[in-house]
């Protein structure tokens, strides 16, 4: 199947997006912004439709709209911390309804409407591939160079701000990057399933990993497995790629969670008593200093 040009492109594109979207997903989930990807993809669709209507490059206009949308969301998030869910719903409806109306005005694009909604491997053209590579490099650099501030911020923004990190700036950069990644991921899995690439690998990785870097690597591994297996299956069985990839990822999540439960069950039967026993002996309250203050 890799002798075909379009499949090569699809695998490249899918691989790039799997890597960066999975990493992004871990942060988004821990920052409680899992819905943000979904919302931005809907907003981005309006940009695609507007671009097609105005005879611009729809890929680029969709990309720009997602980035602008991400900046808007970041401002809304700052002013209405408690109402973030409502703002997500409102912006999502706004984006999707604009897209539907604009697309109905333009007959040529409404034919390829489903490929935007559900993704299509043939939809990946050269422009998009270049865009994805660029986004992956930028995202990779961002997540690598800022891994420590991001770790602190993801755990808690207020404590991070107090310890001197430029939380507002990094948070804004993170939002813009989210918009970029979402827009780049759209052609592969489609608007409606973008969040599958972002949320599903991360949600399994977060459950399994006990170190942060392990969670990131695991998410990338799961994402790549899901995308490659999904693309292969969609080629062999002539299924839509977006849906197939999402289903494979969903299956991986269920298997992973099931395995974890099974392992925990087996372990708890064999070692429950022993573990509780050792813990009682080695773990205690905050030690008093009165007796041994020379240690400090």
């Amino acid at each position: 199947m890799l002798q075909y040009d379009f499949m090569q492109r699809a695998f490249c594109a899918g691989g790039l997006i799997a890597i960066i979207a999975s990493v992004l997903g871990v942060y988004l989930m821990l920052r409680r912004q899992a819905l943000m990807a979904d919302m931005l993809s809907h907003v981005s669709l309006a940009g695609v439709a507007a671009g097609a209507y105005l005879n611009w490059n729809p890929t680029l206009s969709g990309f720009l709209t997602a980035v602008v949308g991400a900046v808007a969301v970041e401002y809304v998030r700052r002013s209405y911390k408690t109402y973030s869910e409502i703002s997500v719903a409102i912006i999502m409806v706004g984006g999707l309804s604009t897209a539907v109306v604009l697309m109905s005005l333009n007959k040529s694009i409404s034919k390829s409407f489903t490929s935007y909604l559900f993704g299509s491997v043939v939809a990946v053209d050269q422009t998009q591939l270049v865009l994805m590579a660029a986004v992956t490099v930028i995202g990779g650099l961002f997540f690598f160079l800022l891994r420590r501030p991001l770790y602190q911020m993801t755990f808690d923004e207020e404590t991070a701000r107090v310890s001197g990190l430029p939380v507002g700036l990094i948070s804004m950069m993170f939002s813009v990057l989210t918009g970029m990644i979402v827009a780049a991921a759209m052609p592969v899995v489609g608007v409606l399933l973008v969040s599958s690439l972002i949320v599903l690998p991360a949600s399994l990785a977060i459950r399994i990993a006990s170190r942060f870097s392990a969670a990131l690597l695991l998410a990338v591994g799961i994402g790549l497995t899901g995308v490659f297996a999904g693309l292969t299956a969609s080629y062999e069985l002539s299924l839509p790629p977006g849906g197939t990839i999402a289903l494979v990822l969903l299956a991986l999540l269920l298997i992973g969670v099931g395995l974890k439960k099974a392992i925990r069950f087996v372990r708890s039967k064999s070692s429950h008593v022993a573990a509780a026993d050792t813990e009682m002996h080695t773990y205690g309250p905050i030690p008093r200093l009165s007796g041994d203050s020379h240690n400090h």
Partner: protein
Amino acid sequence: MLLASLKDVDFGYSDVPTLHNASLEVHSAEFVAVTGPNGASKTTLLKLMLGLLKPWKGKVQLARKRDDGSRLTVSYVPQQIAAFNGGFPSNVQEFVLSGVHSRGSWLRKVTEKDRAAAEKSLRQVGMWQLRSRRIGELSGGQKQRIIIARALTQRPDLLIMDEPTTGMDQESRAGFYELMRHMVEVHGMTIVMVTHGLDECRPYLDRIIELERKGEGGWKCCSTTLCNGHFVPAG
């Protein structure tokens, strides 16, 4: 040295101020408790002091530099942070070690010294044995302790804590107050903490700041009580 000060500060969340004409000063190497009944804006007072909230009027100052000109480090242990982020994929040791990154470059390597600092903080709060546990598997009181350990690893000049002993058992609380006293006396750390357990910690404190109700319903800061002769108005 004056580390933090509020001068005639007004602040509220709606159109009525909850904090009225609050003034206070925190000097270096003091152990200060902030106390008052529920709803007395104790947490608000801390957040104003840290610059997380902007006052309606009045002046808030937080020192940026130490006497020798180097950057002053501040650590904050919020109230019941333990309730959040239970699924955070990190173990205790990694989490506490992240405290060292608040100083120096974001990309510098983790040194043996950093690891030793993290180990010491973990031992000080009695959590070293649980260092390879996932954060999410800990109890509320244990989470509170590793967050305090992370703050200690940052070696802050000013440590601000909001009800740090919530969820701790009695023996841990006693150990905790002793540890804090030690930090103030030996390492010259300045500690401000909101607490309800004044009876227990009074012997360790330098000063108590009490929020009092004003006539019109707002809260006023602050009557300051000196404790135990600990108080040394450091320059």
